[in-house]
């Protein structure tokens, strides 16, 4: 793999920050965009802009074709059986809300149980909590151990005939833990429990095959897969999506409307009310093709080597504690430094061109579990190098110097 070539594909990486080379290690929050994605947005507004699925004019036909071509790219990317199973949404958060709302209103009643895990991001907790408040269902949580791994030995204890859905994160944004998804789904299905997967942290880092996983729903965000903000994908098996009522009403999702009654479109349009972010959908297609062009083996091997190197180097810093030591992790490392609050770490690292995330990572239950108010988190992408990690380590010693640690 030619990492220097890859780095030149991402123009932002060439911009110094506070006079230093940028070491962008906040990829779990959002990834940078390759030139092909930036150009796709630009090209769309220069040459193709029109509303889709309605015009008979040339531009509308072109925009519609490009939009639907992106859906096909998404289908191939996640290996869905049908393109109609790929719904465009704002992002992972909207996908969870869509399913909690729509699946919830169709299938979940008072006394039912919704199962999530101790590793969830707030976006895969709060929509289900809101559904519980509306419906009288109960939220149950699969616990984790001190390493940040789910306690799967006792998984079946959390299943009951009342469990209507298991909503689970593929990999933890706060700890990096990679869940053994295929096994979890298999065991849930043995109890007739459908599984919703939050794939926000994996779609850009691991090959996703929704048919092989056999998940009932899968979602990811465009902006964490080298694509634009404001766009994401919800995959759902056809039979679920067909049975579920629309999430939002409006234009584009109907066949006919009268004041007495409306007939809804079929999939995927039933779930895509209103004008979607067309440019972003098309650019997302380019982002996914960019990932495809690199190849999954290359991406996985590279990011695992970064994880291994960073774990070793961070572990050698006195007073630094890595939070989350699961056996299988994606390229995410959370840590604390004795006597220094993570926000102070973040501010000082920034002065040395190192961008990391600090805070609770929208996973306050995880912070509570490890009894820390916040952590500092470095997360890797395809363009990161060992030099980025060295820059992080050097800057962390500066933090220690400022704080006399």
């Amino acid at each position, binding site marked *: 793999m030619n990492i220097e070539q890859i780095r030149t594909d991402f123009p932002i990486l060439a911009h110094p920050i506070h006079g230093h080379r940028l070491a962008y290690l906040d990829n779990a929050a959002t990834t940078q965009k390759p030139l092909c994605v930036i150009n796709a947005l630009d090209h769309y507004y220069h040459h193709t802009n029109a509303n889709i699925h309605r015009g008979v004019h040339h531009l509308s036909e072109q925009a519609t074709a490009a939009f639907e071509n992106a859906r096909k790219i998404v289908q191939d990317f996640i290996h869905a059986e049908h393109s109609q199973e790929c719904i465009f949404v704002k992002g992972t958060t909207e996908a969870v809300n869509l399913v909690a709302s729509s699946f919830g209103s169709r299938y979940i009643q008072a006394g039912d149980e919704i199962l999530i895990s101790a590793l969830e991001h707030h976006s895969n907790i709060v929509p289900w909590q809101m559904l519980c408040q509306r419906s009288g269902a109960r939220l149950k949580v699969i616990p984790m151990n001190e390493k940040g791994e789910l306690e799967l030995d006792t998984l079946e204890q959390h299943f009951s005939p009342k469990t209507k859905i298991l909503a689970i994160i593929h990999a933890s944004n706060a700890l990096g833990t990679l869940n053994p998804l295929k096994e979890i789904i298999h065991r849930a299905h043995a109890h007739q429990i459908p599984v919703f997967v939050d794939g926000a942290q994996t779609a850009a880092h691991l090959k996703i095959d929704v048919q092989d996983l056999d998940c009932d729903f899968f979602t990811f965000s465009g902006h964490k897969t080298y694509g634009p903000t404001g766009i994401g994908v919800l995959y759902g098996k056809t039979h679920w999506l067909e049975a579920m009522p629309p999430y939002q009403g409006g234009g584009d999702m109907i066949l006919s409307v009268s004041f007495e009654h409306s007939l809804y479109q079929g999939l995927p349009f039933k779930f895509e009310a209103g004008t979607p972010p067309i440019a972003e959908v098309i650019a997302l297609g380019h982002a996914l093709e960019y990932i495809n062009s690199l190849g999954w083996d290359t991406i996985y091997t590279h990011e695992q080597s970064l994880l291994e190197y960073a774990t070793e180097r961070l572990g050698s810093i006195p007073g630094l504690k890595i939070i989350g030591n699961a056996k299988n992790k994606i390229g995410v490392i959370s840590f604390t430094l004795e006597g220094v609050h*993570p*926000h102070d770490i973040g501010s000082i690292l920034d*002065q040395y061109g190192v961008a990391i995330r600090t805070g609770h990572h929208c996973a306050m239950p995880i912070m509570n579990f490890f009894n820390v108010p916040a952590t500092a988190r470095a997360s890797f992408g395809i363009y990161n190098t060992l030099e980025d990690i060295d820059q992080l380590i050097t800057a962390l010693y500066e933090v220690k110097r400022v704080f006399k640690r």
Partner: protein
Amino acid sequence: MDIRDLYQELIIEHGTQPRNCCVLENANSSAEGFNPLCGDKVCVYLKIDNVTIEKATFTGAGCAISMASASLMSEAISGKDISEILDLSLRFKECLTSDSAPPLPGKLAAFAGVREYPARVKCATLAWHTLEAAIKKSASTITTEAL
């Protein structure tokens, strides 16, 4: 811009070993403040006698900036009149957001560097906002009692 302008000796010292960091047993007003962005949390306790804050303490957890701010605030306001303190609070917040504001008195001048770090202004002002809430609460209590 040097990171030492933000993390001055005084801020590191008070941030890591804050003064008056305890519950005030005979407090007659208190308020809680949160900075959801950082997870900083501060509770300010006041012993108010008529128009004077006799003693101020705080408890909380957060970054060095927020803890140092609460610590130095508690030192700066104990024994002062409420009107004077509210004026100081206003000046503190102004100084952190505006280049043209007059410099802060005494040790509080150490926070002038925070102005260059917009993401951290809320950390520094959290204690002062919480102080204002505690003062307001005591005023409203007094008003209610007067009625």
